[in-house]
């Protein structure tokens, strides 16, 4: 069973209760259709578990097959630098069909970023190194495609349809509860 090589840390983007007992971590690519399909499932899972779950997203752009994936990942990081990572994350996954620079700038404006700074960050690839670090941490963790999910640092090798993912999380929650008691 592959394990998360780099534990969740201060650099990570965490959605939901940061101290939740359950962690769902995704290595994903904004241009990957499978990640796009997983996006609403993750949202439903987050709703279902509420404060018991924190969701972490790390970049794993497959740049040779998805030419827009790298700049989309850098765009999310640039938005994160302005405190709006998740707003951009949502925009990217709900607009996967238009991830060129012109559209990225439009999304930046819609979510209220300083667009000038955002464009500069993209043009200078200010966050390319950070994206590469995420990618390499995924490689080291045994990420073998996108999306790859980890539940409490163990790779989830099953399907990521809603019932399967919910059941896997529920069972991890139960195991966590047992180990605490």
């Amino acid at each position, binding site marked *: 069973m*592959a394990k998360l*090589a780099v534990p969740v840390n201060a650099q990570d983007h965490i959605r939901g209760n940061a101290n939740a007992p359950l962690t769902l971590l995704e290595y994903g690519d904004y241009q*990957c*259709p*499978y990640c796009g399909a997983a996006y609403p499932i993750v949202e439903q899972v987050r709703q279902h578990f509420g404060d018991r779950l924190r969701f972490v997203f790390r970049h794993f752009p*497959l*740049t*040779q*097959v*998805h030419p827009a994936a790298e700049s989309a990942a850098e765009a999310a990081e640039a938005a994160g630098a302005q405190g709006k990572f998740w707003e951009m994350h949502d925009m990217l996954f709900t607009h996967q069909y238009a991830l060129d620079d012109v559209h990225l700038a439009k999304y930046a404006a819609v979510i209220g970023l300083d667009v000038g700074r955002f464009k500069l960050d993209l043009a200078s690839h200010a966050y390319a190194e950070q994206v590469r670090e995420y*990618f*390499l941490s995924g*490689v*080291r*963790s*045994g*990420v*073998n*495609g*996108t999306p*790859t999910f980890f539940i409490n640092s163990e790779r989830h*090798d099953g399907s990521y349809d809603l019932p399967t993912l919910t059941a896997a999380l529920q069972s991890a929650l139960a195991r966590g509860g047992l180990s605490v008691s």
Partner: protein
Amino acid sequence: MTRSVSDHDTDYKTTNTEESRHALEPGTPAPNFTLHTTPDQTVSLTSFRGQPVILAFYPADWSPVCGDEVTLLNEVLPEFRRYNAELLGISVDGVWCHLAFARDRKLKFPLLADFEPKGAVARRFGVYRRHEGVSERALFILDETGTVHWSYVSPIGINPGADGILNALESLPRQANASGNNAPADTART
């Protein structure tokens, strides 16, 4: 992800043949081979003496998922090159199939056609699945002398990822001339 080959023996007893239960073990000199990578180019294993070689056997081109094994290896290629390692993909598909597949996935490493006699190289490495007529999903790391340093046979439906390869490359004795060599190796060796 880094279980040894022998851990997997039992996984395959129902479907595998003798040939695929004996993947070459660490310490074994790798048999040399020459295979076509394009209609008019061949690659010989001996051309890579003096540098580590990653042999990635896989069942077939055109896996239907976008995060498949060769796509992943292609993305991690710059990391392999930090170890001066050469990556070679091998399947029983023919050169024209490989060309189309490599172009579609924008692959930056050669795919070798173990096509005629079919699967001959996979058989010599002990990773041929006779009933299916394809190779296992198997990885071999050869050291600079062409000896198997590490090998891994993945369950055929599971992309093994690249963590095992990087760990194996790290565990190779350091080469005197390898550090800092980021230059892409010439892949068109004839």
